[in-house]
């Protein structure tokens, strides 16, 4: 791209969900702004609706689901670039149904002034949707948006990306890069000014409208690697809506003896209002349901409190927690290995979702969601914020450059199987205490530095570099001494036993394994510190650099541990 071109490049971040899309941009101060469209919405329903040739988009299109469902296209993002046989038409039950086209799904809609149906491909629909987003962004920015970083699920295929790129191009948008939704969410958090760079295992639980995705990410010095994913198309916001719909439908039946779910239009109204009630219950503990003329002219109002909602939705909340735990297991980790849980996606607003996760995971693991963390970011905006940040990072690069940098040649890297660290207190692996310098799942090459205390009197110290693994130690605390027995105690002693069963305590402990090297640093001063620097190369060789902190004279020491792999080795 020539200078001219890159100067005229206006890039934004786009999160393109099945249910909602968002657009964001980073301003000159480095702040990320999530842009509201002309309706004032930052979560813009990914829907298009046509009435007499007029195109409605976003919330306006969504409102058309009641009167004009067959000419309203919704929940189509996952269809992009897919064969018809691979798509799940279920979410489209209340809008235009997908049909089998020659190249994937199509929709038959009356989108012109004429009263005739036209077959529109997914690509065309996608282009139209992106165009509307682009227009909203351009209006806000005051300049024509022509490039974007777009977030996609981790299982979005290359074929799907190609299709989306083509549709975007039709809309006049150059896709600078696709980034994975959960990674984008992590970036949004890590880009906060007060965020500290640290090695952590992050579980991103993205609960959207029609799908829930869990991603386990190793974050190592700001480099993100996905360890495992889990997808669920059966439990997400739509099921919460459904639970409320069923609840209100039953209320209605009690009063009016007819099931509003049997009437398509009533069903659509019920669904829209249920979603609104659900959102209201994210903030308030009570919400009122009100639909004019639900069935045969009957207006229906009702109220529900949050507790009730949490009760009827509980099996879904529990299911999401199980999904998260299963992803952690898939990654070969223990829940105790998790550093934090990021709740992403609109349904993360529902307080019980976050609380349920909080209680499913070991105590003390932060769950970043509105209900469980006062400093959390808006879960609906995480993906788009990350996309905007990424866009600002790369928008100056030439396209060729971006392509090169995102190629597996650059992204593929050996990730350490075990942590590498030092033994403190004792040089004996069984009694010494292992402290990691480089965690497992860290991509190499990598450098880590640590400063370590020395024995009280200083002197000669042993620096033993080892591999270590974290293990889960399970212990059962000694049972509390029983309260003094009363005379009639015998009868219910059975009960007592089960109640008194002490809970297992699980904790994560390090265990030193293979010793990699031994070194001596002699004559270390009292109260001094020793600096250990490890440079692990791509061939898994390690350079160990040792010195006494502040010892400018340089009595330092450098040693090498031979590598066991060829560079760019094979996956194992």
């Amino acid at each position, binding site marked *: 791209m020539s200078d001219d071109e890159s100067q005229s490049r206006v890039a934004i971040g786009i999160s393109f969900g099945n249910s909602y899309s968002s657009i964001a941009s980073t301003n000159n101060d480095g702040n990320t702004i999530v842009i509201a469209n002309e309706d004032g919405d930052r979560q813009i329903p990914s829907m298009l609706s046509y009435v007499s040739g007029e195109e409605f988009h976003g919330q306006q299109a969504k409102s058309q689901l009641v009167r004009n469902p067959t000419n309203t296209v919704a929940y189509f993002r996952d269809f992009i670039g897919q064969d018809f046989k691979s798509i799940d038409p279920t979410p489209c039950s209340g809008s235009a149904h997908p049909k*089998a086209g020659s190249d994937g799904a199509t929709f038959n809609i009356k989108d012109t002034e004429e009263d005739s149906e036209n077959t529109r491909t997914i690509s065309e629909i996608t282009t139209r949707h992106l165009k509307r987003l682009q227009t909203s962004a351009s209006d806000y920015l005051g300049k024509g948006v022509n490039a974007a970083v777009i977030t996609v699920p981790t299982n979005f295929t290359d074929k799907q990306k190609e299709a989306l790129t083509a549709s975007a191009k039709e809309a006049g948008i150059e896709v600078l890069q696709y980034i994975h939704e959960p990674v984008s969410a992590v970036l949004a958090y890590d880009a906060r000014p007060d965020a500290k760079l640290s090695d952590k295992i992050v579980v991103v639980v993205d609960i959207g409208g029609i799908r829930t995705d869990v991603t386990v990410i190793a974050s190592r010095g700001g480099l993100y690697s996905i360890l495992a994913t889990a997808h669920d198309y059966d439990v997400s916001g739509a099921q919460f809506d459904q639970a409320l719909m069923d609840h209100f439908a039953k209320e209605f039946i009690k009063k009016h003896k007819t099931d509003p779910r049997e009437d398509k239009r009533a069903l659509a109204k019920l669904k829209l209002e249920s979603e609104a009630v659900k959102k209201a219950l994210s903030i308030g503990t009570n919400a009122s349901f009100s639909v004019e003329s639900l069935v045969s002219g009957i207006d229906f109002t009702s109220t529900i409190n949050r507790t009730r909602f949490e009760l009827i939705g509980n099996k879904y909340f529990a299911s999401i927690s199980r999904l998260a735990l299963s992803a952690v297991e898939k990654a070969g980790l223990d829940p105790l290995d998790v550093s934090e849980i990021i709740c992403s996606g609109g349904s993360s607003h529902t307080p019980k979702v976050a609380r349920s996760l909080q209680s499913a995971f070991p105590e003390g693991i932060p769950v970043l969601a509105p209900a469980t963390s006062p400093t959390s970011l808006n879960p609906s905006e995480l993906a788009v914020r990350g996309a905007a940040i990424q866009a600002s990072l790369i928008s100056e690069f030439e396209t060729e450059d971006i392509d090169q940098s995102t190629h597996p*040649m650059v992204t*593929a890297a050996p990730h350490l199987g075990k942590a590498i660290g030092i033994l403190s207190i004792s040089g004996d692996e069984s009694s010494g205490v292992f402290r990691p310098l480089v965690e497992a799942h860290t991509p190499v090459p990598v450098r880590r530095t640590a400063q370590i205390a020395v024995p009280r009197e200083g002197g000669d110290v042993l620096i033993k570099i080892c591999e270590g693994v974290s293990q889960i130690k399970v212990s059962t605390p000694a049972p509390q001494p029983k309260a003094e027995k009363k005379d009639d105690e015998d009868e219910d002693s059975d009960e007592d036993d089960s109640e008194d069963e002490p809970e297992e305590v699980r904790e994560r402990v390090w265990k030193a394994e293979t010793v990699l090297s031994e*070194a001596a640093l*002699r004559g270390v001063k009292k109260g001094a510190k020793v600096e250990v620097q490890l440079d692990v190369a791509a061939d898994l060789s390690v350079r160990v650099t040792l010195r006494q902190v502040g010892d400018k004279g340089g009595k330092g020491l450098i040693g090498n541990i*031979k590598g066991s792999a060829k560079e760019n080795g094979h996956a194992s």
Partner: protein
Amino acid sequence: MATITISLPLPVLPEGWTAEKDFKAVGEVSAATNRSIEPVGPHFLAHARRKRHRRTFSEDDRIQAQENVKSVEDQDAGEISEPEDQVMLQREAKDWKGQDHYAVLGITKYRWRATEDQIKRAHRKKVLKHHPDKKAAAGGTEDDQFFKCIQKATEVLSDPVRRRQYDSVDEAADVEPPTKKQTQKGNFYKLWGPVFAAESRFSKIQPVPQLGNDKSTKEEVDEFYNFWYNFDSWRSFEYLDEDVPDDNESRDQRRHMERKNLNARKKRKTEDSARLRKLVDDALALDERIKKFRQEEHARKNKKRLEREAEQKKAAEDAAKAKEEEAKKQAEKDAAEKAGKADAKKAKEQAKNAVKKNKRVIRGAVKDANYFATSGDASASQIDGALNDVDLLISKQDPDELAAWTAKLDGKKDAVIIKQIFDEEVKTLKDAGKIKDGELKTL
């Protein structure tokens, strides 16, 4: 990354530790896994810059790099694909209670073993195929009955509580126990192992001890039967409840139905416990290991008894022998004693004879010495006196002394010499205080 601070002190260098230049490499870093770093964020840009630094990658390298990365998305391993039975596809959704939910989702080879993830993926696979929109596209009818069956199956199987209720009555997962005849003809472990493996699914306590084989130890077998006789089952039977009429019906009717269902559940639960108990009884009765262990136990006890008996016998024998020996010894001793006595008698006799003989010799000597008469024939009183004196002397001497005396007199005929010998004897006896002066008349 910021420098890590470790406040635990480094170990003191052990006495005698040496290495060339104070460093020695000992091991190697474990194998790494090739993964993809997400090309996102400022730190990745730095990484990319380092990695690409003045380098161009060949097309081969690029393709290889891509292939070597470990995938984090599930590949469909084809584990969820079973032929669909025509009869099943014709099912009516309203009969969902009677359907085999695992068959509907095509995971009959897993059943209660299916993970939640497998159920989800199976469901999705079925949805993609049987959604009414798909049927319509294929020119079929918009019949959504089987699709609804799929939804019902998923609804039941993806809810842990309802799934247990269904698994409780999923007879297709049962393994019928073999009959006695079958067991006797076949391999006990092959025949009964799967029965217990299948029953294990109902145990609240997991893992469940399994049947094992003929190599199992007595402890293992004991533990196995112990566990199964105290089986704590989560099996319950609400899935078989008869429908309770909804709100419209009379309340009494409902209560009645509910009570009926409750009783039916209880009854089935009791029957199930009895069934399991019998099953374990049957297995136990046919389990050769029990017999084997009993025999072994028997043999062990027998061995002990035999050993004890042998010991007792030996002890008895030993005692008898000892007694015999004792008796023998006694007899010998007695005999010896007896013999001793006879000898002594003989000796005594001999001694007596010797004494007699000696006395005779001495007396003869007195005669030879003419009864110590100084001249002429000895007078009768001289003879008497001399013989009295000799008798006195003899009486004062023990047989040995007599013998010695006799020996001195042996062959002596001369009266003077004989008198001399007698005088010596007298003197000796006098010195010994055996004879007092005046006692002797002639000597």
